[in-house]
């Protein structure tokens, strides 16, 4: 059983964000160098991931999607086993069968990751139903994107959760992009949270680049859910700083918009706050960076050393 990181102190939140950033950049660099299929990074969205996951409790369950590294690492997943999975190696969390797109880690409560956009929304209600009917503690956090909010299953999932009063925190990571389509082209209005009203569900939008704000909003939301208030829609407003997948020249991205968001980099914001409010020094950050670089180096080496799955694995794990 892996242990969960305790993300209650500001520097722990920063460290988690730095780990995610370093992890994703290392894999991006690797796929650029090796030409191997690259994963979908969430660079620029670290605060949205860490802020939410840091506010969850041990018994809570998480469902996520193709852009999941931040959720998994914040929850305590081993970057080495994750990289091994992304590279399709036998020590990956899913024996290499998932690759980067559907990594789930049951022992960490990260269940049923689907790369079908909206897939996690279709499954979250059932997971929450199990929690309720089997009398388990722990609510369900379901991460999905602004694009997923356009799929019909968003409507069906939120409505059923509301009618059945299921303990689900719906977390819409609105990163303004849906692969190669800007969110603006897919909906009128700026926010997904406003749709919650249609289901009689609370809906709140929070600055997804401010880790403390996201954590606070999540704590408020989960408190309401744990009080039996039923499901809750939390939208983290953020931005996908890199392309949809690696490599991606982002030729289709508006430079002004990109630059504006780069200037609101969640990691820079967190560091500034730590300097201003906790007296952190550049030296402190340097030590942090070094520690993380070492972890990522070790993880990468572990993954590269992990053997390919045996061909016999092709036919296993199909039926129970």
């Amino acid at each position: 059983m892996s242990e969960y990181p305790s993300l209650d102190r500001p520097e722990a939140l920063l460290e988690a964000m730095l780990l995610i950033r370093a992890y994703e950049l290392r894999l991006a660099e690797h796929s650029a160098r090796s030409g191997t299929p690259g994963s979908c990074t969430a660079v620029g969205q670290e605060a949205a991931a860490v802020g939410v996951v840091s506010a969850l409790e041990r018994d809570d369950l998480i469902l996520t999607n193709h852009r999941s590294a931040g959720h998994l690492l914040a929850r305590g997943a081993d970057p080495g086993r994750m990289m091994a999975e992304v590279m399709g190696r036998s020590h990956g969390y899913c024996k290499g069968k998932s690759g980067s797109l559907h990594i789930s880690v049951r022992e960490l409560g990260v269940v049923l990751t689907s790369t079908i956009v909206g897939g996690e929304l279709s499954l979250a209600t059932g997971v929450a139903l199990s929690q309720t009917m089997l009398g388990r503690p722990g609510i369900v956090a379901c991460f999905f994107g602004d694009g997923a909010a356009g799929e019909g299953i968003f409507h069906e999932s939120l409505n059923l959760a509301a009618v059945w009063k299921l303990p689900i925190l719906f977390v819409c990571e609105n990163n303004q992009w849906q692969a190669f389509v800007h969110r603006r082209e897919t909906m009128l209005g700026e926010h997904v949270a406003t749709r919650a009203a249609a289901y009689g569900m609370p809906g709140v939008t929070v600055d997804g680049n401010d880790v403390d704000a996201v954590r606070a909003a999540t704590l408020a939301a989960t408190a309401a859910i744990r009080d039996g208030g039923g499901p809750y829609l939390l939208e983290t407003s953020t931005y996908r700083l890199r392309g949809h997948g690696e490599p991606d020249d982002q030729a289709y991205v508006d430079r002004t918009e990109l630059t504006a968001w780069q200037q609101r980099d969640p990691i820079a914001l967190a560091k500034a706050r730590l300097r201003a409010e906790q007296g952190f020094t550049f030296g402190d950050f340097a030590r942090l960076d070094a520690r993380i670089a070492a972890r990522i180096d070790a993880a990468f080496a572990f993954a590269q050393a992990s053997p390919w799955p045996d061909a016999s694995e092709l036919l296993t794990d199909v039926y129970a």
Partner: protein
Amino acid sequence: MSVITVNEAIAQALAEEMRRDARVLMFGEGVATKRPELLAEFGEARVRNTPLAEAIIAGTAVGAAATGLRPVVDLLFAPFLCYAMDALVNSAGKLRYLSGGQFDFPLVAIAMSGSGWGVGAQHNHNVEAWFAHSPGLKVVMPSSAADFKGLLKSAIRDDNPVLFFVDIGLLYHSGEVPDDEALVPIGEAAVLRRGQDATLVSYAKTVPVCLQAAEALAASGISAEVIDLRTIKPLDAATVLASARRTGRVVVVHEASASCGVGAELAALVAEHAFDSLKAPVQRLTGPDVPAPASFALEQAYVPRPEEVVAAVRRVANPQCSAA
């Protein structure tokens, strides 16, 4: 033994399994309204109506199955499965594998299909072959009351996702059902009639059609074996091949259309693994490759008839067809 309808057999299987295992629950559009006896015995938590939303009904079943419950969902008519394909095919069928075996999906999805009610192609489309062509799923389609009961019970106890198809035309057929547990294993075909001259392989509503045909053939001295597949995936190839090797003549009969249907799979298996025993071409007698019409007159013409089965057997039983 007691004689009950297929509809009653289904109700009994559900009640018995819900009584046996508290993790079993059932939901769908109108489930609580249409099964008041289940609602009364097991309560609102385990017998639920849902919004009109097949995708989330199926998805909820898949998510619940992976985390400790054993859901049974009623998706009404098979064409409505078109709204539930992602949950059934991409999630239930694939997430065990893609997760490296971290999850099981013990769930049953029930859907009706077939001619008989004059409801047309948006309520009547035999799509069992779709799921036979999808990994990680099991597919069951019985023909008798006893098999409906025994297979539904086995499906609910199975740790894998099972598509359970109910041929509308059979719902009010009656049959003997054992009073004991009466489980019928998934994956075993039944030889309903022994014969030496030809093998009739079928499932669901065309099984009785084949039995009638066999009766008629017997009268004219042709002895036809009749096999009811009962399970479509995993297919009981051994039983079919053993019979094919003995008779050397095979006619496959089903209501679903031919192209890439279950009959195609059976004919391919026979042509590959019983080739040297074959005395005649493998025949397929199926519904036409057209949408099911509503008009009673046309719907009648849609389903294979006993005379057609008889004619198909006569064609292959005719010595000129023999390759020997």
